[in-house]
């Protein structure tokens, strides 16, 4: 257990030593909210203010960026440069590596979510989540679904570039089709159908819903689908864990 704690603490420290990743993780979403805010603020949609719509969804998007970039692409890099290969010749088991990186990702995501929320409260008069316990639970379920999902997908990449390409593809598709940026109701029916195939769609429904409308018990379908993705991804990620790119 000591190894998991050590590794998680170290990886978190090293994340903050890399200025570029700090910018993309923490400042980029804030800038995006601010940009969208300058366009949409004042227009109510489905009875929700701009911030009530966008802040929970961008917190959802942050789960995606954390899981694909902070976790997936970094581990793909470790696979390429031999960091994981070096671990392979120690008694450290794969699940401990995945667990440590999951803890690290959760900590970093937590900071970015708080930052977005505080920014929303300060700039756009957002209030704390209506059902705060439900929102926290929704975040945990979303993390459990997305982290292993991204870790598995990026482990299929041969090198860091390929992992980054996979990550960018998923991020962009989900960004535009899952309702985070454009309301789904405005899309043609075919795209609405595609949106429902994307895991982020359910994360955003869950976060927006528990933030503004109802406790998590009203979102059985979303919770069920995300837990399903979680179980399958955890099995795949640990079953197909690879120590080196070869």
């Amino acid at each position: 257990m000591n190894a998991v704690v050590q590794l998680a603490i170290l990886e978190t420290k090293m994340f903050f030593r890399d200025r570029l990743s700090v910018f993309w993780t923490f400042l980029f979403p804030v800038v995006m909210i601010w940009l969208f805010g300058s366009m949409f603020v004042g227009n109510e949609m489905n009875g929700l203010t701009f911030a009530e719509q966008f802040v929970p969804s961008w917190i959802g998007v942050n789960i995606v960026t954390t899981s694909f970039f902070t976790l997936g692409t970094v581990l793909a890099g470790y696979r390429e440069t031999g960091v994981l290969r070096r671990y392979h010749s120690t008694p450290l088991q794969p699940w401990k590596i995945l667990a440590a990186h999951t803890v690290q990702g959760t900590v970093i995501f937590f900071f970015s979510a708080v930052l977005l929320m505080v920014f929303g409260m300060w700039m756009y008069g957002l209030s704390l989540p209506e059902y705060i316990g439900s929102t926290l639970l929704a975040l945990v379920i979303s993390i459990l679904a997305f982290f292993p999902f991204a870790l598995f997908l990026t482990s299929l990449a041969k090198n860091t570039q390929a992992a980054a390409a996979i990550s960018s593809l998923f991020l962009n598709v989900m960004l535009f089709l899952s309702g985070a940026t454009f309301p789904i109701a405005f899309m043609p029916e075919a795209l609405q159908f595609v949106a429902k195939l994307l895991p982020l769609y359910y994360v955003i429904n869950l976060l927006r819903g528990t933030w503004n409308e109802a406790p998590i018990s009203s979102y059985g379908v979303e919770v069920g689908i995300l837990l399903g993705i979680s179980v399958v991804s955890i099995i795949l990620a640990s079953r197909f864990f690879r120590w080196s790119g070869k």
Partner: protein
Amino acid sequence: MELVIKVEGVSKKYGSMFAVKGLSFAVKKGEIFGIIGPNGAGKTTTLEMLEGILKPNSGTIDVLGYVPTKQLRALNKRIGVQFQSTSIQKKMKVKEALQLFASFYDGPSQKDHLIELLGLHEKLNVNFEDLSGGWKQRVTLALATIHQPEILFLDEPSMGLDPHARREMWSLIERLRKQGCTIVITTHYMEEAEKLCDRVAMIYHGELKALDTPQQLLNRSVSKNLTFESHQLKIKDIETIPGVIRAEENDGLFHVFCKNQQETAYHIFRICHEREIFLSNFYFEKGTLDDLFVHYLEEEVVQ
């Protein structure tokens, strides 16, 4: 003598190419065992099979009583590994790396002792990416030995080091051996094998060519040679002497490889005496592992 590694008839294929073919040897407890050979000879493949990272296509390997690929975790608790070119996280500080790797093992760590032994004090707060090649090697050596392994595998530990750093690396390896560690090392520096290793296995094209102490290898006929200076003697005079394997001449300096030094010397002196040719600086030389190395390599080319 207790054997800690037993390798019998091991082969490893990549596609239809043999990287290692029918290799057999054993390593004794407490020795420094060298694996030498040219680039691409199969040294790293051999090492990685011993470490349990690669699975041989045929043959058996026993390391500390384990089958490496099957009992990898148990084996990894008792061995230490330094790879040729793996890296640890770039932005990790030296002291963090030591602490992290110490947490991977159950037993006591010799972290503080290693900091002392390897002189790491001044670099503890430096990120791994900012270290020079020599310091990186020291740090990865420390990580490989932090849990006091019974066998230490070093893949080209002095590659890219300057001669001074290389000598320091040798004395560190010597000291680790004095602590009771068995060391298996690959190298293509013959000097390293000669000075450091108790026994040396020479591998060419994945096959074992020779296995002995450096001293015994040097005593082999092929590496015996004579050197002398003469400005009148012709190289074809030497080449026709019975027992001469090869002769080289460079600006009057002769280098003669032969089966029997005394007999060849007799013939050279006889020829010079008969023709009243002046000879100087005549030496009996033992040759170096370099000569042997090149000899085997040339043999390959001829075949």
